[in-house]
């Protein structure tokens, strides 16, 4: 039975995406869960899985073409016994609450119900952004050599087939593409397609749209609290001194963990404002603002932060930051944050007053950690301090509650061993 493979919706506000490449050709056998195409959105390259076993009958859309959501891109001859399969389900590895295709940074997380349902006869493929791991081979459908975004873009601009570079067993970098180009005869340039660089206009437009909506609709209020980090710093130094780099913690992990525990106490800061009322988050899924190299911003979510120990949280944070900056986020990470934390301290600012990502209701900011004079008992001491800020939605909470929330973060950070 022939089934349609369609362009999925990668967010409630997405109308189309550019097909970057097919990983299959007619006649190839595919199985449920294989990645068979890569599309470009303002989030970056997103890998699309097929959710039926079968054989690729026909490719209908060429690479480089902009494709509207719902457009049939290929026909799959479904395998025996799979023809009556229902709509694609979320891969088991994704959180149960998150069958969410990705959305643009700063845009509204898409509720599962907000996704345009596929036509009954159409199989909606589930998009994923799979991490590209060094060592992956190109031998099987759904697997490929990891390619950096810069390399992919250059290859596309120059019309270089990345397959020429694959099989070496390591990540393909821009330099590899340049070397390959230098040794080949000039090729016909590929069709002009949207840039995959993080500073692409699409991402800026998505951020602008979300932030404009936020400032238009959300009555923000702002609070700040100076927090003494001496206890946390001492504990952190001791913790790290005994461990190799991959087991060390950054202060960010303690700040996020303390925030998550405070959110348990103040659930009014964690959730969404929709249809004129507050909907508490089902879990504490913390969107972490990550600046991208070359410009742009994404806020992927770490799920259930309140249930992660600081070392587990640190592992998630490092992994997610690295993948965000390499353009390899997973769809489940970019759609369902219930609150956002931003830390611009590393760039030297004392404090950051965030703009709430609608429909969330709060954003917590941390400035730089710096040595400052503070009163300790009857005297003055020099301690590492950080300015924590809160921007929250006045339709859901007020300043009194917000102040108690910030105080709870500060209190948690005085007992780092309990985080």
């Amino acid at each position, binding site marked *: 039975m022939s089934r349609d493979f369609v362009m999925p919706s990668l967010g409630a506000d997405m109308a189309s995406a550019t097909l970057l490449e097919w990983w299959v050709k007619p006649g190839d056998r595919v199985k449920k869960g294989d990645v068979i195409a890569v599309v470009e959105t303002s989030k970056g390259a997103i890998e699309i899985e097929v959710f039926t076993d079968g054989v690729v009958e026909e490719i209908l859309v060429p690479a480089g073409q902009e494709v509207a959501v719902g457009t049939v891109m290929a026909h799959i001859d479904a395998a025996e016994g799979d023809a009556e399969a229902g709509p694609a389900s979320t891969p088991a590895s994704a959180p149960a609450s998150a069958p969410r295709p990705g959305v643009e940074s700063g845009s509204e997380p898409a509720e599962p119900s907000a996704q345009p349902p596929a036509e009954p006869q159409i199989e909606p493929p589930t998009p994923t952004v799979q991490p590209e791991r060094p060592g992956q081979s190109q031998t099987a459908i759904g697997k490929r050599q990891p390619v950096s975004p810069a390399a992919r873009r250059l290859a596309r601009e120059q019309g270089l087939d990345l397959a020429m570079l694959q099989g070496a067993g390591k990540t393909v970098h821009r*330099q590899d593409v340049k070397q390959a180009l230098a040794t080949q005869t000039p090729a016909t340039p590929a069709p002009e397609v949207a840039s995959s660089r993080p500073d692409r206009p699409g991402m800026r437009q998505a951020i602008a749209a979300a932030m404009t909506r936020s400032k238009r609709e959300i009555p923000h209020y702002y609070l700040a609290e100076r927090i003494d980090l001496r206890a946390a710093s001492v504990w952190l130094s001791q913790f790290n001194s005994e461990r190799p780099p991959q087991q*060390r913690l950054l202060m960010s992990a303690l700040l996020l963990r303390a925030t998550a525990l405070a959110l348990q106490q103040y659930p009014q800061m964690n959730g969404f404002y929709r249809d004129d009322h507050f909907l508490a988050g089902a879990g504490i899924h913390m969107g972490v603002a990550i600046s991208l*190299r070359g410009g742009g911003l994404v806020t992927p979510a770490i799920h259930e932060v309140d249930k992660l120990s600081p070392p587990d949280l640190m592992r998630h944070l490092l992994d997610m930051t690295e993948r965000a*900056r390499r353009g390899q986020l997973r769809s489940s990470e970019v759609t369902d944050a219930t609150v956002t934390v931003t830390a611009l301290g590393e760039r030297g600012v004392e404090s950051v007053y965030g703009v709430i990502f609608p429909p969330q209701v709060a954003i917590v900011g941390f400035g730089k950690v710096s040595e400052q004079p503070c009163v300790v008992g009857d005297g003055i001491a020099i301690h590492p301090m950080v300015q924590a800020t809160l921007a929250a939605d006045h339709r859901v909470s007020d300043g009194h509650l917000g102040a108690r929330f910030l105080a709870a973060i500060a209190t948690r950070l005085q007992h780092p061993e309990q985080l």
Partner: protein
Amino acid sequence: MNQQAMRAAVIEELTRIAPDIDPAGVDDNVSLRDEYDLDSMDSLNLAAALHQRLGIAIPEADFARLQTLGDLLAYLGD
């Protein structure tokens, strides 16, 4: 591992974390943070990668002092 191989290994790990850096154009004498926009997450990822690859666990206090690629290579070479 000789100096050239060490440099190649460090640059490979650096450009894996920051793919937009051209490996051929890395300047040994500029700040990795200011010039190549490495933040604490990137730095910790780099330290972890170097530990795994080279077997050298740079203590946190020492790593904080290594501002440039040249600093890093000199430290690893000692």
